[in-house]
């Protein structure tokens, strides 16, 4: 087992948030991933976001598929229930869990193999359903646990550690998510906490299908020259279109960076997203512009990051199904079982 110390954060560990928890209360078991793995930085960002949002840790259900990324939920939110499901099928399990109890926060963690290869179908359909969730893909373009095979997000022409070129086209998960109906779509980089933490916070507050693609270099198998998911490559080609300030309906969060061009978007729970725009042409609330810009950046060899698409007034699956406000798992016999009287009527109609 490899022990790694987690990236240092700005807040000292013992400060309590408004919910009465310290940052440590949001941590999980010690990571068994490789030292320097981008996934651990993403876990740290999730911990930070949940801490800053004053979430009650047990009010989160974390779900994953199979792979390095899907091991990650063990390493954050130790007081939450977790479910490591089967390869590529986390979205369906998360759908069922969400239907059973609409009151919890659902955090799905997956990888590029899990979501773009074996699980592309479930990835697409969970976006279509508009499940109220945060779906994070820790995207390294490679299969780590089985030692270095390409995944479906590996760029065409990129070269594996063993020197094999990838001849298949890559799948761009953010474009997929937008096309399939996700209402909050962002991309970030595991090495860019300043962008990632507010993005996760905004995704948690979003009452619909929120997807974040996080490019997360694999130090063991995909951090060499020729890889387009390495630390160096992403740092050099990162084109951030915006940075988010996330403003809850309760309190404004002060930020440590200067405002550029600002765009404010009000979500229907009252929270406000303030986007510090780096690219004036970019309007994340317009699907056509968003897709256009994503394609343009890709053609230019840039990794476009930030909040890429947002529908501030989404409808989630529960709204579409018109389910009761009480979680379905809290309904009792009197709610569910119509009794003998109704059965008598039914029997009478069958004679």
């Amino acid at each position, binding site marked *: 087992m490899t022990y790694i110390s987690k990236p240092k954060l700005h807040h000292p560990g013992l400060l309590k948030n408004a919910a009465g928890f310290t940052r440590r209360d949001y941590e999980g078991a010690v990571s068994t991933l490789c030292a320097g793995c981008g996934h651990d930085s993403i876990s740290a960002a999730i911990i930070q976001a949940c801490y800053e949002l004053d979430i009650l840790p047990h009010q989160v259900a974390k779900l994953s598929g199979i792979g390095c990324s899907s091991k990650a939920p063990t390493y954050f939110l130790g007081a939450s229930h977790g479910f490591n499901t089967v390869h590529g099928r986390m*979205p369906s399990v998360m759908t069922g869990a969400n239907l059973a109890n609409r009151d919890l926060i659902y955090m799905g963690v997956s990888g590029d193999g899990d979501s773009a290869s074996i699980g592309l*179908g479930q990835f697409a359909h969970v976006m279509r359903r508009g499940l109220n969730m945060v779906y994070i893909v820790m995207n390294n373009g490679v299969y780590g646990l089985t030692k270095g095979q390409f995944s479906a997000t590996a760029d065409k022409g990129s070269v594996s550690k063993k020197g094999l070129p990838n001849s298949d086209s890559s799948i761009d998960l953010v474009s997929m998510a937008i096309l399939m109906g996700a209402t909050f779509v962002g991309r970030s980089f595991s090495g860019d906490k300043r962008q990632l933490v507010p993005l996760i916070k905004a995704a948690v507050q979003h009452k619909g299908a929120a997807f974040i693609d996080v490019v997360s270099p694999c130090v063991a198998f995909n951090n060499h020259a020729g890889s387009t998911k390495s630390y160096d490559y992403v740092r050099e080609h990162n084109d951030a279109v915006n940075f988010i300030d996330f403003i809850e309906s309760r309190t404004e969060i002060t930020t440590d960076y200067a405002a550029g061009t600002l765009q404010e978007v009000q979500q229907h729970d009252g929270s406000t997203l303030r986007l510090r725009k780096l690219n004036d042409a970019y309007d994340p609330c317009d699907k056509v512009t968003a897709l256009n810009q994503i394609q343009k950046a890709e053609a230019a060899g840039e990794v476009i990051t930030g909040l890429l698409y947002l529908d501030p007034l989404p409808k989630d699956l529960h709204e579409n199904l018109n389910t009761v406000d009480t979680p379905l798992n809290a309904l009792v016999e009197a709610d569910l079982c119509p009794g003998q009287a109704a059965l008598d009527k039914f029997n009478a109609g069958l004679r």
Partner: protein
Amino acid sequence: MPQAVAATNDFVVKFANVNGSGSASANELFARAILRMGVPISPRNIFPSNIQGLPTWYEVRVTEKGYLGRRGGVDMMVAMNPQTWAEDVKEITPGGYLFYDSTKPTPPAMFRDDVNLVGVPLTAITNATYTDARQRQLFKNIIYVGALSVLLDIDPKEIERLFGEQFKGKEKLLDSNVKALNLGRDWVTNNIDPSAVKLKVRRADNVGNRIFVEGNNAAALGAVYGGATVCAWYPITPSSSVAEAFISHCRRLRHDKATGKAKYAIVQAEDELSSIGIVIGAAWNGARAFTATSGPGISLMTEFIGLASFAEVPAFIINVQRGGPSTGMPTRTQQADILACAYASNGDTKHVLLFPEDPKECFDFSAEGLDLADRLQTPVFLMTDLDIGMNQRLCEPFVWDDKRSLDRGKVMTVEELEAGKTFGRYLDVDGDGIPYRTYPGTHPTKGSYFTRGTTKDRFARYSEEGPVYVDNMERLARKFDTAKKIVPKAIARPAKGKTKTGVIYFGSTSPAMGEALDGFDQAGIMIDALRVRAYPFGAEVVDFVKSHDTVFVVEQNRDGQLRSLLINELDADPTRVRSVPHYDGTPITARFIAQAIEGHLSPPRRMAAE
């Protein structure tokens, strides 16, 4: 005139129709009218995998004695499909009747000498009255029902009463249907001597308060009563009507009166993998959830079924079996997924199966299966089939004890956690192999755990240690032993005298078996019978196999799957357990069972029987 089959309240009428022509409701009308006269019937749809324009059949067995299995043989063919004419005519029992549309002359070579002809100019009658094409098509069906009602002595008042119920508040439709009925009746009365047809329906009192319902509809209602709140499914014949019935029951019974909001969630998923994933996610999070599928869907779900079994998450799966393997015979019945479900998934897996015999047990076992899945924290299968699921069957009315509560099994509450009760997700505290679970979100600091398909210790911590793995697997075996004691018990029907010969059967074989056993009784053949209702097998099944020298296992698959399961699980001597397989896709008959078992019996016994 050829010899004429004569029978009262004991014959088979088969309708040969064109799919999509509106014949289904007319044929059901015919069947129900006989039922209303107090005479039991057993109808079966025989339909190829097509939508419109291709052949479809509806076979009605009229059976005063109440034998609801398929009989075999056709006493009267209502030949409404020119495309299948030749094979339909061939199927009629010698001395039987061919009812046909005589509007156009039919060459004599197309008839049979040993079959009685009943020609009615249906098209001519229809076209003389109706001009609209759709009306012509629909009312022609009603006209043949009218004609048959005179020939078979079916009380027209019962048909009119059925119209009245169907078209309540739509008097115009009611009148036009009665008119069409009488067009058929009048033509026969004026042109044919009804006594030429010697198949007759005579009023009886053998239906009682039984209901007439499809198994899929019953299973769906059972899921409502069993408290299912999440249903995820993917359309597949012959199971789709389970989910569709669940939708309609929920719309009627499960909306909050004040807000109109739904106390259920139904998702038509993108495939069966997703359906079972949704079920497992919902059940993990404390909702009762189920899916309905058929063989190919089970194949797809297999990985998830292993996860649910090993991670110990409840799941209720209704498998409406059809002919396999692969796409197989999608619209024909079989009991051929027994092994695939009993041992579904990689590794050492075993699952609970329930075998309903009719819609009543589909209802009962559906509700009970949801309880069992929660109590045992494991997948439970309702192993029904097309014959039960997609045909209306006469059965006992549904009953519910209003004092009954949902048995959610071992769920640790926030109060228990707060009081300091030890929580080990995979800890066996009382020897039954079933651990406690918590629902996500129960307590801020206690009772959370990580669910995974990989190995773990008693406190749900990841471990690949051999002894830890074995400890868990042994407990799972203990849990399966507990299941033996709480699943529905097998039902015995002893022979009238002492015997060392036994027969085991299950599911949709039940009505045909009952009829065959009556025949054995009459012939003085002594066979003890046992209807198995669940797997794992209880002590009564073990005793039955032990106490007989020969045990026949009657089942609707080629390889004797239940037989294999019995031999494997009970360590029974294979030479004493003999297979009686029926697997051509048609429902098994008493005639087949009797012939097969009598053929197996030792020669002296057989001679005695003859």
